[in-house]
């Protein structure tokens, strides 16, 4: 057993890399990325790969839009473990970044620990609830577009039974489904709403089972908010003609164009740009930031392929209500008393 060898191996590689770095030192100063040296620096931490065409991809698009629209110098890292969260928050703080976004609620504990040490940096966690003098949680107002989704579902349903399926009953989902039920009752006071939870967010076949169970009960429009597991809902609908789905979070109209009436879409790039602009102008107020009514960040996007299935009057009604929402003039009816809406 020789102990000298692994050490020498380690030394060799460190030395070789160090040499490489030295050799290229001049070049690295000459070539700089767009807007390097800009004093407005924005960093993004994503919990997964930016190739996911969903949660993380949208965030990365947002970062690029901040770079292009606001001339920011940007950096992105995909964190692999919770141990990475704090280290990267700290590194970005130490490097003088103006805005650091942790894209997911899992980042909030680490952000809370690090933020006080770098008061000049603004930390934002997407769907976080932790706040501080330079720490904000960013969430999305899902209620109004969900209300419109409910109107849409009730107007298309022929059986008078509509469904809602999510991964788990977390507060934002519960709020969304409440508004969905309200919207549906506003159109058809007698409508029946079946809600089920899969128990997780990634089991496609479990999502399909829940959808099939609802279809068996006579449900013919399902609003799904179950991430990857929600793909099973589309599969179930495709196997049962006359059943339709409303998607969530990203524009899922292309997932199954033949059965998707529309999607409640979060425009993550727009959300990030909105926050970054305020941070740059110095008008940003850290706290719980809800982007919803009064912005275009969360909207119901109808699927043009199935436009013929939606009554024309309903389409124009949703359009005009949505325009009111974007202008900040639309108010949801009070949530508590559902019987009142049944009468209206």
């Amino acid at each position, binding site marked *: 057993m020789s102990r000298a060898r692994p050490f020498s191996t380690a030394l060799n590689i460190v030395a070789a890399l160090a040499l490489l770095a030295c050799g290229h030192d001049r070049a690295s100063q000459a070539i700089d990325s767009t807007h390097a040296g800009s004093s407005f620096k924005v960093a993004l931490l994503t919990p997964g790969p930016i190739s996911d065409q969903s949660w993380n991809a949208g965030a990365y698009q947002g970062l690029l839009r901040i770079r292009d629209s606001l001339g920011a110098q940007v950096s992105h890292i995909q964190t692999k473990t*919770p141990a990475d969260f704090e280290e990267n928050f700290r590194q970005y703080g130490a490097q003088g970044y103006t805005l650091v976004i942790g894209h997911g609620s899992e980042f909030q504990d680490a952000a809370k620990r690090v933020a006080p040490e770098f008061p000049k940096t603004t930390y934002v966690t997407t769907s976080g609830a932790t706040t501080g003098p330079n720490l904000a949680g960013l969430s999305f107002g899902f209620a109004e577009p969900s209300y419109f989704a409910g109107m849409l579902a009730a107007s298309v349903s022929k059986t008078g039974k509509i469904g809602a399926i999510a991964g788990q009953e977390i507060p934002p989902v519960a709020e969304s489904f409440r508004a969905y039920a309200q919207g549906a009752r506003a159109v058809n006071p007698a409508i029946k709403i079946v809600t089920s939870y899969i128990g997780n967010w990634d089991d496609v076949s479990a999502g399909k089972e829940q959808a099939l169970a609802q279809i068996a009960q006579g449900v013919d429009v399902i609003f799904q908010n179950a991430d990857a597991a929600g793909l099973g809902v589309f599969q179930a609908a495709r196997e049962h003609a006359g059943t339709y789905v409303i998607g969530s979070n990203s524009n899922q109209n292309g997932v199954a164009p033949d059965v998707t009436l529309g999607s409640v879409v979060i425009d993550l790039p727009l959300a990030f740009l909105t926050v970054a602009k305020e941070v740059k102008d110095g008008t940003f107020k850290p706290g719980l930031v809800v982007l919803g009514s009064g912005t275009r960040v969360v909207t119901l996007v109808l699927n043009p392929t199935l436009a013929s299935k939606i009554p024309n009057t309903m389409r124009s009604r949703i359009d005009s209500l949505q325009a009111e929402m974007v202008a900040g003039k639309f108010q949801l009816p009070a949530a508590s008393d559902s019987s009142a809406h049944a009468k209206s």
Partner: protein
Amino acid sequence: MPAVSELRMGRLLAPTLIAALVVATGVLLAIGGYDVGRAAEALVNGSVGSWYAIGSATLVRATPLILTGLAVALAFRAGVFNIGAEGQFLVGAAAAAAIALTLPKTPSLILILLALVVGAIAGAVWAWIAAVLRSRFHVLEVISTIMLNFVAAFLVSYLVRGPLQEPTHVYPQTESIVAAAQLPRFGPTTRLHLGFVLALLACAVAWWAVRYTAAGFRLRVVGANPSAARSAGKIDVDRVTTRVFLLSGALSGLAGAIEVCGVTYALYENISPGYGYTAIAVALLARLDPAAVIATGILFGALEAGAGAMQRDANVPSVVVSVIEAGIILALVAADRARAMRTRSAVA
């Protein structure tokens, strides 16, 4: 011990391979359109470029790798192919988090000790399952320990969504552990915690014990030739391997407990990026030597830290970083094995 000329040959081989790898990495980055110089600069700066990088990035990442690497090295030395360091790490982390969350009022020193000890015991228990399966039912531990890794991962998933979930029941993680349960850090600006010293101590003690104690001798004999150990040495092989299983599991469990008490302060689903698997590379590269594990653990810690900096400062996406890491691991292990084979043929 190999002849001098063989040593020289071995020394020539490794730099050649590594030089080739460095060039290949550069070419790969250049093809991908990345700034090779900046990437290399970030790799070095992020791992050894400053005291902060060395302490807070490299050594913090090296700590779990050293402990799990030691766990694997000791097991392999005794012929116990424990591939389950990952699972033992996870149950250790879960147990430590559970202790810290249920006894938050305990005085700091006792709470930390308790969390670490219970974490180690949990890891040992997890390994003991594989030990019993091997000694009683002749189940290959390579299979049982790998399977137990999956069980442990699902167990953690269940815990952070069930009994140990944070109070609002929204996020799949536990609440943060109280300050009293957190391992002390070496100063306010560093993330380096006491766990690193514990890892070094564990390696030192293991190195000494393997070399100079009767138990260490039994471990080596059983690893070298179990039948000879049984017939000529009158060694109870099953007992030795069971103990090695327990020790190996305890070290991995301790690594998990230290990660919770020293770094993450909460239990998460993906708390390990595969430390228990990287540990196998760490142990093999150290030629299963407990002292050399320190060096190889730090090397891999530095690679991980440098990879993060490459992504942050040179826009090299994590996929490329992973490819580079894997390439480095392969080249290092290949170089090491090639040398070992040459040495063996020279001796024969």
